[in-house]
């Protein structure tokens, strides 16, 4: 059952595992050595498995068929790809790590394919059988990898396009491309008699098209507002005072999920700030928050200007004697839009010098008090 080669590697696996156990037991701080020994064990385990599957590469042993023939050689692109990979590796060492890794991947892929192909071609004199042998060995690897790569290229290309064009154009492109895919799918499904080459041609052409426009879009860069937002570090900062950035995200409410059952809803309308607690059917200027509780409020902007809601949550000592205000805020919210804000107040109101409040920067005289009993 076990071939000589696999026996050797299995033995090596077992031996290195045993040594590893001993090593860990006997040597202090054994991490490095243990990793090395485990790596040997794993590698020889894999090789043992491989040599079991292909009977040490001697497919033909014991077969009643004619001996392997050397005349079965077919054209192969793997030497070429291996060369490209090798060049990539070398070039990558002096230029850019990405080139190095791409080269390495090409080299590995070519090596594997080449190895299996030449092995299978020596298997027997039956070409069809040899091809099926190659398929059995490589298809479980090839299909998932190619599918992932293919999908990845299309997804990345498409996303580059969407980031490069304006939002409106993006919507139109999405609709057009989606409809085209649906239409093509429907045609293929309804007309099974369609020529195979035609179907393949359409698919390849569209895939190439998507990839090409992706490359074009990527080289064109992001659209203007994204570029500016990036410059202002808009995605990372939280300005709880008046807005200084020019290019905040005007669709903020769309980027944060809507919540049901928040503790209160704060509304800005006609320059007035009002609150409504969930379950209480009246408008108030004071809301009650349980202490030490992550709670969510919704800020709804019904005013005629953009606004943000800022929560003053007391102070905290940053160093000895230095005290800093704790603020939290929503993003700038457009007219008729809303956003959720989740925060926690750990100390009761009586422990704070100033009351906890919700205010809109730039709007004087309007505030909602947060009562923490």
């Amino acid at each position, binding site marked *: 059952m076990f071939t000589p080669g696999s026996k050797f590697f299995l033995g090596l696996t077992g031996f290195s595992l045993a040594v590893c156990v001993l090593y860990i037991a006997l040597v202090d701080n054994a991490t490095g050595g243990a990793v090395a020994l485990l790596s040997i064990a794993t590698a020889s385990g894999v090789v043992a498995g491989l040599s079991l599957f292909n009977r040490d590469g001697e497919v033909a042993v014991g077969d009643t068929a004619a001996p392997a023939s050397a005349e079965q050689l077919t054209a192969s692109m793997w030497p070429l790809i291996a060369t490209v990979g090798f060049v990539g590796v070398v070039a990558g060492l002096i230029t850019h790590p990405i080139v190095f890794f791409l080269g390495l991947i090409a080299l590995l892929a070519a090596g594997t394919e080449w190895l299996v192909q030449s092995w299978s071609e020596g298997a027997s004199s039956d070409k069809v059988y040899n091809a099926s042998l190659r398929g059995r060995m490589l298809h479980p690897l090839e299909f998932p990898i190619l599918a992932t790569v293919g999908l990845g290229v299309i997804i990345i290309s498409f996303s580059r396009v969407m980031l490069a064009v304006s939002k409106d154009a993006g919507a139109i492109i999405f609709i057009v491309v989606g409809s085209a895919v649906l239409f093509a799918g429907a045609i293929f499904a309804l007309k099974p008699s369609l020529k195979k080459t035609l179907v393949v041609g359409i698919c390849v052409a569209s895939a190439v098209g998507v990839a090409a426009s992706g490359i074009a879009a990527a080289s064109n860069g992001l659209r203007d507002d994204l570029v500016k937002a990036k410059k202002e570090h808009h995605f990372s900062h939280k300005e709880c005072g008046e807005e200084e950035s020019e290019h905040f995200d005007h669709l903020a409410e769309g980027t944060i999920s809507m919540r*049901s*059952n*928040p*503790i209160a809803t704060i509304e800005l309308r006609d320059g007035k700030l009002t609150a409504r*607690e*969930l*379950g*209480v*059917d009246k408008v108030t200027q*004071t809301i*009650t928050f*349980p*202490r*030490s*509780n*992550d*709670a*969510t409020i919704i800020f709804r902007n019904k005013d005629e200007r953009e606004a943000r809601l800022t929560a003053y949550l007391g102070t905290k000592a940053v160093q000895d004697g230095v005290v800093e205000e704790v603020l939290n805020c929503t993003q700038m919210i457009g007219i008729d839009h809303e956003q959720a804000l*989740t925060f*926690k107040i*750990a*100390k*009761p109101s*009586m*422990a704070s010098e100033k009351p906890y409040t919700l205010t809109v920067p730039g709007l004087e005289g309007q505030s909602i008090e947060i*009562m923490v*009993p």
Partner: protein
Amino acid sequence: MSTTTRRIVAGVSGLAATSFLASCAKDAPQDTWQPKGSNAKIIDDLQQPVFAIAGVVGVIVFCVVVYCIIKFRDRGQAMPEQTHGKPALEIGMTILPALILAGVGVFTFRTVFDLSKTSDTQMVVNVTGQQWWWEYDYPAQPELGITAPIITSGQMVIPVGTKVLLRETSRDVIHSYWIPALNGKRDAVPGRVHTLRLDADKPGIYAGQCTEFCGLSHANMRMETVALSKEDFAAWVANQLADAKSPAENTLAKEGEAVFLNQCVRCHQVNGLKKADGSPAIAAPDENVWSGAAPNLTHLMSRNTFAGASWDLLNKKCRANVWGASSETVGKKYLAGVSEECLNQTDLRRWLRNAPAMKPMYADPTQLSSTNGKYRGMPNLGLSEDDIDKLVAYLSTLK
């Protein structure tokens, strides 16, 4: 009658008898079939007929099956007709239950919406669950005499005949607030506020229990709702609004205050308690407990249970006196609070000696790595018997 039949008949009569006797289990404090408030009443009015219908259907099916068993037993009769069914009968037997259920559905629909109304609220209480006790805070509601927020735990006090709206939330895991005599249950979910209507017809103490599995001491997370007459409620509010008074100098209680300031105030707030330098002592449960809260003890002795309402502050005799009181007298007795002679010394001392031994909690440092060393529940403080004496003396002044 064959033996099987006789057994079945015996079984049926036995079942009937037991279900009759079931109603004899009287005065279970959490009985769901004894509504004491309008919301529970609405539910009860809906469920009684449903149970009756279900019972009748059950008996019919049972009788038909028993009839078949007796009547069609193999007595060597000829092979029965190989019938594959009678569609008309089948369709009829599909429509009939559908009609019954449609009827039930209409009433269910109405009741669901009745029970979710919030427009007729007369009083609001915020209810917050955490492992393993309930906290209540009453926002200021001057029209009810609540001029400043009140905070209490374990027992919620409401005025009788007033439509109270609970706004429930939780500080850690999901809990569920349930006072069977007053309404069904509603989960308290962290990050969400859920409302639950409550009102009581008569003064009394209504027991309940957390009914969403909330971890280790789920069984020890209880609560009561105490309904008081309007006057009694006003008296209760007045008492709750007052700060705790410091005990007289040179008493055991005063020494207890020092122990409290040294140990307990890390988590437990007592309003009005001053540190040695005269500044107010502010508890910091957020620094010591994972949920960030511990019961406010300002008026501990105005409640008659403690530790998640699982143990009594009243000793057996006094408890029976208060809990068993008629609806006319229960208010006065409850307001009297826990006097020295009524205090359940045993359980309170046991608790102070080693709380986690009494109520399973995460107080062992090896179990606290997931919470960065913060406790889940009260740890064993390692108090000396001396300190416990002093603390008990101090705690009994917190009326």
